[in-house]
């Protein structure tokens, strides 16, 4: 059971976790990304490529299902304008055992960083700036390559 949502609206991690807990496994792992207010950030604006986003995220999810025995996967990625403290991304995985749930969760979030077509623009009081991709994020995604 996997479900992917690309949405502007907020989500409820507790409800998502409860759904994963009901999948019958012995372990649920999750990651929730929150907008940081570093350096006087007022808002983060997330642009995406709708025609590509779903296909790309589905591919990443399919690969996770191939690599680990998962009972449930939930991916939520928001777009639009988000303020510090707001939730931006959620990945949840359920499996019979903890290792698969934890590893698949880390894999999914690392791949989202470098393979999902989203771009972040930072808004400050006096300027805006596109967030540059970090070599470190690419290296993390590469480290999962077989």
């Amino acid at each position, binding site marked *: 059971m996997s479900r992917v949502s690309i949405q502007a609206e907020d989500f409820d991690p507790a409800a998502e976790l409860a759904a994963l807990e009901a999948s019958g496994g012995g372990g649920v792992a999750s990651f929730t990304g929150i907008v940081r207010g570093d350096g006087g950030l007022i808002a983060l604006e997330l642009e995406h490529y709708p025609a590509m986003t779903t296909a790309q995220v589905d591919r990443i999810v399919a690969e996770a299902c191939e690599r680990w025995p998962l009972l449930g996967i939930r991916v939520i990625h928001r777009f639009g304008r988000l303020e510090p403290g707001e939730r931006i*991304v959620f990945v949840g995985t359920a499996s019979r055992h903890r290792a698969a749930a934890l590893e698949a969760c880390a894999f999914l979030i690392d791949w989202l960083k470098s393979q999902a077509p989203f*771009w972040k623009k930072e808004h400050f009081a006096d300027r805006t700036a596109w967030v540059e991709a970090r070599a470190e994020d690419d290296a993390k995604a590469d480290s999962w390559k077989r």
Partner: protein
Amino acid sequence: MLSLVYFAWVREAVGRDEERIERPAPGTTVAALIAALAARGGGYAQAFARPDKLRAALDQRFVPLDSPIGEARELAIFPPVTGG
């Protein structure tokens, strides 16, 4: 015709999010098309001056810049993604 779509600062520099152009010869690579776009000058020159800062997708799949455009209907050009 080939649809070109732009995102993030590439979109801002060229001043539009998409356009349609005459289909290039099938062997034309993404890199060659980027060079031709840069030659238009202005915001295009700014957006496409540094191919190493760009990524591309043909029909919604990431491709290396040396890939031929072939029969693809849509070419997207954008900066490296920063999701998650």
